[in-house]
């Protein structure tokens, strides 16, 4: 007889105590060992939603600064090296997301740095001249308006993709900061953190936690989705175009959608970043930006345009990035890739090998198994849709050509990492903005934007709001 206790299963939900009897039960989940998923039906989900919505008055009775402090105190526990919450998070991020434990820890550090009291306070200050406009009417600075009040949705449905752990928690925090009762439906890769966050919030501030729930179900369950869509005046979706479209088509016409759909990131390295003093740092940062989240983030670059004519050629640059990715891989090993992802990498590698042998100027660098891949792509025509630390280095005569090269991606453009463009950077940023890029940053900042970043071009809290004007 062993005295060892069975490890506690992870319950992939968190609902207010009064709503727990609405769950019909739970079942073991075959996707992740040791996980229980709730047994849900549309009626019970709708009852949970109604219960959350009823907690709105309590949310409104608390000043936004106080809400931010509660949320921040919980967020900081994820950064406490000896804390139980961080330990729980670290033991569950990898099983859900497939990220390696080291990468999971690095991702948690990066994400949770945006969840601290200081970071959330800074977020409020970045979004509002006076954040108490979320508490009451404030005199307007506009000449023809007497006063304004910012209102979060009566009920918000947050549908999160799951490709990057932590995004669902950020989504929950944003909702609660605008005092909106919220149901978070995380993607499989991002179940652990919002559940743990909300449980900890219940200890910290039960009245606040009563306005939120996290429920995991397998994506695409129309009956469950419809039960929530019908009740939400705002739905926020993180996901692929097909997910966005599937939900948008079924929303009531009176409710709003904020869609964080597919995005692509890319990078630009100019000659000034290719000198002996600079290139080492640039290469390390480029490799880090590619490797974080195993390249599944909307911010992750897949193509880096490198100027010809610098002290380091694009070919040499590709080789240096390969070396840097190998080094990153030792500190932050790549996690699991599915057959779809690996297969795409194999097609790219095989094609690159053939083009290289055929004298097309393509150069291929590969890590062990499918751990990383760098391809010098002088023809600018290889498949750039791979994930799992795959980067194409495309030579350009001048960085100024890049905006036109990426312009066809239009609405999908998001983050551009830029290095070594010197005094040309401002002009380049202007041209990138015109083709639809919503964020220009150095490579070191690519992976973890600050909480107040303009997420896909909009203020992250303001995107959720409606305003009430009053001139009485």
């Amino acid at each position, binding site marked *: 007889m062993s005295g060892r206790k069975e490890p506690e299963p992870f319950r992939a939900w968190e609902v207010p105590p009064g709503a727990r009897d609405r769950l019909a039960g739970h079942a073991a989940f075959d996707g992740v060992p040791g996980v229980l998923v709730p047994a849900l039906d549309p009626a019970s989900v709708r009852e949970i939603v109604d219960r959350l919505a009823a907690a709105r008055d309590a949310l409104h009775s608390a000043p936004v600064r106080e809400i931010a402090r509660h949320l921040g105190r919980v967020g900081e526990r994820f950064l406490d090296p000896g804390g139980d919450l961080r330990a729980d998070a670290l033991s569950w991020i990898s099983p859900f997301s497939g990220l390696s434990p080291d990468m999971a820890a690095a991702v948690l550090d990066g994400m949770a740095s945006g969840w601290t009291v200081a970071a959330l306070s800074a977020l409020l200050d970045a979004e509002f001249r006076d954040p108490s406009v979320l508490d009451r009417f404030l005199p307007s600075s506009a000449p023809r308006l007497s006063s304004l009040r910012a209102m979060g949705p009566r009920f918000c449905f947050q549908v999160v993709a799951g490709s990057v752990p932590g995004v669902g928690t950020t989504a929950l925090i944003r909702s609660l900061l605008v005092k909106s009762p919220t149901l978070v439906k995380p993607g499989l890769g991002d179940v652990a953190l919002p559940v743990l966050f909300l449980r900890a919030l219940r200890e910290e501030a039960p009245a606040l936690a009563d306005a939120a729930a996290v429920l995991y179900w397998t994506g695409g369950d129309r009956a469950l989705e419809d039960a929530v869509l019908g009740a939400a005046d705002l739905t926020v979706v993180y996901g692929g175009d097909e997910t966005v479209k599937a939900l948008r088509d079924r929303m009531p016409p009176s409710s709003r959608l904020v869609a964080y759909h597919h995005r692509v990131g890319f990078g630009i390295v100019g000659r000034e970043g290719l000198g002996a003093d600079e290139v080492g740092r640039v290469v390390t940062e480029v490799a880090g930006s590619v490797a974080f989240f195993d390249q599944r983030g909307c911010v992750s670059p897949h193509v880096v345009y490198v100027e010809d004519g610098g002290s380091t050629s694009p070919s040499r640059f590709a080789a240096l990035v390969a070396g840097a990715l190998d080094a990153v891989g030792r500190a932050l090993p790549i996690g699991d890739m599915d057959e779809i992802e690996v297969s795409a990498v194999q*097609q790219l590698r095989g*094609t690159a090998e053939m083009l290289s042998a055929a004298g097309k100027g393509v150069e291929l660098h590969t890590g062990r198994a499918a751990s990383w891949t760098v391809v010098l792509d002088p023809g600018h025509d290889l498949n*750039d849709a791979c994930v799992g630390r795959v980067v194409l280095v495309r030579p350009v005569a001048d960085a100024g050509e890049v905006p036109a090269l990426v312009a066809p991606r239009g609405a999908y453009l998001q983050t551009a990492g830029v290095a070594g463009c010197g005094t040309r950077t401002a002009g380049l940023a202007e041209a990138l903005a015109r083709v639809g890029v919503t964020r220009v940053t150095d490579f070191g900042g690519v992976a973890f934007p600050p909480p107040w970043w303009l997420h896909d071009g909009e203020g992250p809290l303001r995107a959720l709001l409606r305003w009430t004007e009053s001139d009485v």
Partner: protein
Amino acid sequence: MERFDEAVRELEALFRAGGVAVSSPDAFDAWALRCFAVQYDGCDPYRALCDARGVTPANVDRWEDVPAVPATAFKHLDLVVGAPEAAELVFRTSGTTAGPGGRGRHYVSRAGLYRAACVTAFRSHLLPDGVRPHLLSLVPSPGDAPHSSLSHMMGMVAEELCSASGWYVDGTGSLDVEGFVEAADRAEAPVVVAGTAFSFVHLLDALSARGGGVVLPSGSRVMETGGFKGRSREVSRDDLYGMVHTLLGVPPVRVVNEYGMTELLSQLYEPVLTMGEAGRGLHRPPPWLAVRALDPVSLDPVPEGSVGLLAFFDLANLGSISHLLTQDVGSVTPEGVRLTGRLPGAEPRGCSRAMDELLAASS
């Protein structure tokens, strides 16, 4: 080229005879090495790859050791024996959204060899009872879609194996439902209806909207190919076959799924007409097409029956590259291939997509 033309002649006869001459592993390997020698000599980019790997016809003796090319390489290089301009046919992969590198193209050096492979395999899986049916095609005619391998195949099938043919989807994807119904009502002997899964959904929806289906003569059969991924209306296979039964009068056991891709000149079929429901979910390659499943990461072969990336060696690809690594996943046993579905993320290479886009655009 003399060696090539001689091989074409011999293979054509071999296919016409059902391919039994290559059913033993040794006989297959002997032919695989002949193909490899022709392709190594005649296709410059392929020879460059083989030389870079140090693999030449002089140092391999099994088809598995011949270098495989990824299917996406067809987008970037002219993978053909001899000059591309000299090819008798050019097929293009479907997809109106030209991805990186544009659309794949498959140069077919010798149309006769392709014809022998297609027609023989179609006959053994769709017409095992020796019927000479009327073809009702939901695939555009080869005249309407000259670069579609599926259209070309149906054209050859119509010429060689059918008593008559009618084409009810045009080059713009528009469906002539009245024409189809008229032909169906007139039919007195068994017919074969062929199309992509999506074109069937389109037809069956149109028949429902019209107020009812048709009853095809007993002994009729259906060939269906491709999937629904990314389409506006997705239908499960069971539902589709149920609708085919209700609206066309053809029971599921007479619906044959075809698996093919532009880069592969041979096709695999579900042997339901010969094996009944036991053949469902199993795709049979012709004897001149070898298949194995590879570990996605290492590309080493996986044990028999385990799931992996599918690699094919197609003797019918004599004039291009025979050994192909696909993005499709499945398991392989001596019985055949069990597909676990086209990878959802894979770029569409089947015929379904481009046709489907046309249909969607016109509906």
